[in-house]
């Protein structure tokens, strides 16, 4: 008792010297968010910030099952052609006004408005009509019968009052003064490119940590050091080489989590010689994937476009084995001959191509160097090319002008690979086209029975592996690092901060 008295006396004397408020939780991103507006989300940094500031109609619960967020109740029509959503009455925007049915309608319509050019338009294209029935009830109508539409209602809501029309510009001032209903509100942009978020006191379930700071640390390998120096309390993803060092620290806890992202090396099938499946298959067998993975970390080697824990992963399909002899046979069938210099050539044209990758893809440099050396030993010349963001968007996304590329895809829990493998998919850079795969992907989109969907996608997995539009590489083991001051931590595999409201800080 006496010691408590003494301490409080000291505290009173020191007064100003002691921190009055609790410390903030500082987390690192390799770049500051560009546009904070859920209509325009292009990076994971922005997706994570959106998770702090905004809510969807539904969200994931701790078992990754769909659960209502800002709604009380959602009633699906028996024919699956529509539903009625009833909003909770205790949800408020950061400016204090309650959320209304109009806001939901506005959010959907602004995403759908072609003039807005929302990056999220794909999330609502299946909704044909949204009507506010009264202040708290919304009716959605669908283009076709939809099984469990709740799973697709994760998009973030924005307040209608902040905008003059559903045509929203990227430069709309909302991007710097965002208003959402999420657990945090944006407090300030700071001089050192950091962003401060303050807990939303109106938040329906309460928020444990009073303040969050996003710090921009461009070099990922430097982030680990900062958490050791106690200049950060959280790292979203620890680089593999830092794991050993961090796990030794008593002040840091590592949290493994499963991400839905995988690496691949894609072929441009619009270009010879990659239009010949035998060449793609041969190259797939020339690569020693395990040796590529070893220098950059640990993970699971994949045979198709899903991570191993996914319900759609086809465990009957094995990755291509590293078999130089089989590769040679395939190349000879395709008309290539191995010359005296050990290099493969067809009609005097050597088998040679450029491997393109994004400068910011972490540790890709090591993979590229090793890949280049492996293929050269097998008689294939690989040139490399690192693109910056501008060139990447122009060359890969728009012009599709490349030979092969090294990259990774990240998915939310729907793991929808339609965009990547359907012949009309907008991210199908390699120009992959297989009518059967198209058909199966269409089926999976409209399937009302989850078992049908699973079966169709597993078949897609098998077909895609055989056609080898890309060499499927691996999914990396992911660890978040958090200071031991932070308790009750639960991490969402994709959005990371979904359960941040429940985190506590000592």
């Amino acid at each position, binding site marked *: 008792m006496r010691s408590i008295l003494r301490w409080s006396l000291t505290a009173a004397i020191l007064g100003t010297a002691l921190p009055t408020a609790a410390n903030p939780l500082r987390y690192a991103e390799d770049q*500051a968010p*560009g*546009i904070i507006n859920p209509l325009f989300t*292009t990076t994971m940094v922005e997706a994570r910030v959106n998770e702090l500031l905004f809510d969807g109609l539904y969200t994931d619960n701790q078992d990754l099952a769909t659960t209502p967020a800002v709604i009380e109740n959602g009633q699906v029509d028996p024919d699956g052609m529509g539903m009625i959503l009833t909003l909770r009455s205790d949800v408020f925007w950061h400016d204090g006004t309650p959320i209304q049915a109009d806001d939901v309608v506005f959010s959907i319509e602004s995403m759908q408005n072609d*003039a807005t*050019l929302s*990056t999220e338009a794909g999330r609502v294209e299946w909704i044909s009509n949204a009507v506010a029935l009264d202040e708290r009830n919304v009716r959605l109508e669908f283009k076709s019968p939809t099984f469990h539409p709740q799973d697709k209602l994760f998009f973030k809501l924005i307040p209608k009052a902040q905008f003059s029309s559903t045509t929203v*510009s*990227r*430069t709309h*001032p909302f*991007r*710097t003064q965002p208003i959402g209903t999420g657990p945090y509100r944006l407090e300030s*942009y700071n*001089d*050192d*490119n950091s962003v401060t978020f303050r807990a939303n006191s109106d938040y329906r379930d309460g928020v444990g940590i009073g303040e969050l700071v996003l*710090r921009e*640390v*461009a070099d990922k390998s*430097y982030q680990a*050091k*900062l958490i*050791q*120096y*106690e*200049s950060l309390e959280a790292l979203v993803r620890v680089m593999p080489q830092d794991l050993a060092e961090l796990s030794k620290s*008593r002040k840091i806890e590592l949290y493994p989590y499963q991400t839905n992202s995988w690496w691949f090396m894609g072929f441009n099938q619009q270009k010879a010689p990659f239009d010949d499946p035998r060449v793609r298959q041969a190259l797939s067998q020339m690569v020693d994937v395990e040796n590529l993975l070893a220098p950059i970390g640990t993970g699971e080697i994949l045979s198709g476009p899903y991570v191993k824990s996914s319900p759609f992963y086809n465990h009957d399909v094995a990755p291509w084995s590293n078999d130089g002899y089989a590769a040679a046979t395939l190349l000879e069938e395709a008309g290539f001959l191995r010359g005296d210099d050990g290099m493969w050539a067809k009609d005097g044209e050597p088998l040679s191509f450029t491997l393109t990758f994004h400068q910011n893809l972490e540790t890709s440099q090591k993979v590229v160097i090793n890949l280049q050396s492996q293929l050269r030993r097998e008689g294939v010349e690989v040139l490399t090319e690192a693109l*910056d*963001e*501008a*060139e990447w*968007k*122009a060359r890969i*996304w*728009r012009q599709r002008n490349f030979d092969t590329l090294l990259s990774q895809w990240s998915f939310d829990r729907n793991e929808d690979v339609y965009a990547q493998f359907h012949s009309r998919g*907008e991210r199908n850079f390699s120009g992959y086209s297989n009518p059967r795969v198209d058909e199966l992907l269409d089926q999976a989109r409209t399937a009302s029975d989850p078992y049908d969907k699973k079966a169709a996608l597993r078949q897609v997995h098998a077909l895609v592996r055989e056609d080898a539009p890309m060499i499927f590489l691996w999914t990396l083991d992911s660890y978040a690092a958090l200071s031991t001051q932070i308790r009750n931590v639960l991490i969402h595999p994709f959005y990371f901060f979904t359960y941040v409201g429940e985190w506590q800080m000592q």
Partner: protein
Amino acid sequence: MADAVAPKAQPSWKVALLLLQPLASFVATMAGALFFVSALLFFSPGNAADVVAQDEQLRQALVEEWGLDGSVFQQYGAYLTRALGGDFGVSLTYRPGTSVAELMAAKAPDTLFLVLTALFLSVTVGTLVAFWSAGRPNSLSRTAIQWLSVPPVFLVAYLGMVGLDAWAYGSTVEKGLTPPPWFPLLMETSPVKTALAVTVLAFASSALTEIHGTAEREIRRIRNSGYVDAARARGAPTWPHTLSNLLPALTTLVSNRAAFFLGGAIVVEKVFGIHGLGDVLWEACRKRDFPLVLGITLLSAGFVCGIRLLADWVRLALDPRQRGGT
């Protein structure tokens, strides 16, 4: 200096004309620099819409929204008119839509502080050492300066940081202690980091060698001239004479080195993680955010020309001969 300015009273319009001459050349040089940069940009193969947009439709819309579809002359004619009114457009990538002028105003003080402090430090140290070494043909300090200041800024910064880092890590984290609040250097804004950054900028990339060398040459010249002998004969200290005769040369030196320090500041800011203009310029160049690049480039040209202008005026004030007939 008062006696240098006072002697021959000149008509005030003549003085005004003398002061205006450097100002006119300042304006002309700035216009020339803008023209040169515009000429470089004329052939630019990509623009910022390429960076932000992921599909053709979106890109087109952005090009329209940001006015990137006019001809180069239209764009830069419009740019010049707007820039004269203080409007440098908006950044396309740095929190898109932020005013370039505001951004520059917010970031410039850090960089300016860095450059001016480093300039002051290197001139002071260079001159002081020159006073010492000028009369000593085999001075150890000269050799030391020549060896230590040759490597590029990034290398000195790198070695300094690695060294400090190893020391701080070894003495705190490894022993389970809480590191000092100014650590780690790359992250926190602290006097220690700023001091290190200024020192590196002031001494590396031969900055000190050149300043020291010029000062030494001038000091030798002055010491060999008559004034100093006269002062010595009178028994007066010689250094005030030497210093006052050194000032015009030092002024020229400072105006020549200012541009160099500004370039070095970009590297220092990148290595030390200081969020000043240099850091912003680097990112803007990387992301092809040309309004921002153009704004910062012009600002840095303005700084360089501004220092030259000041140096011209200071020389006019210091050296009556330049005000004479020519």
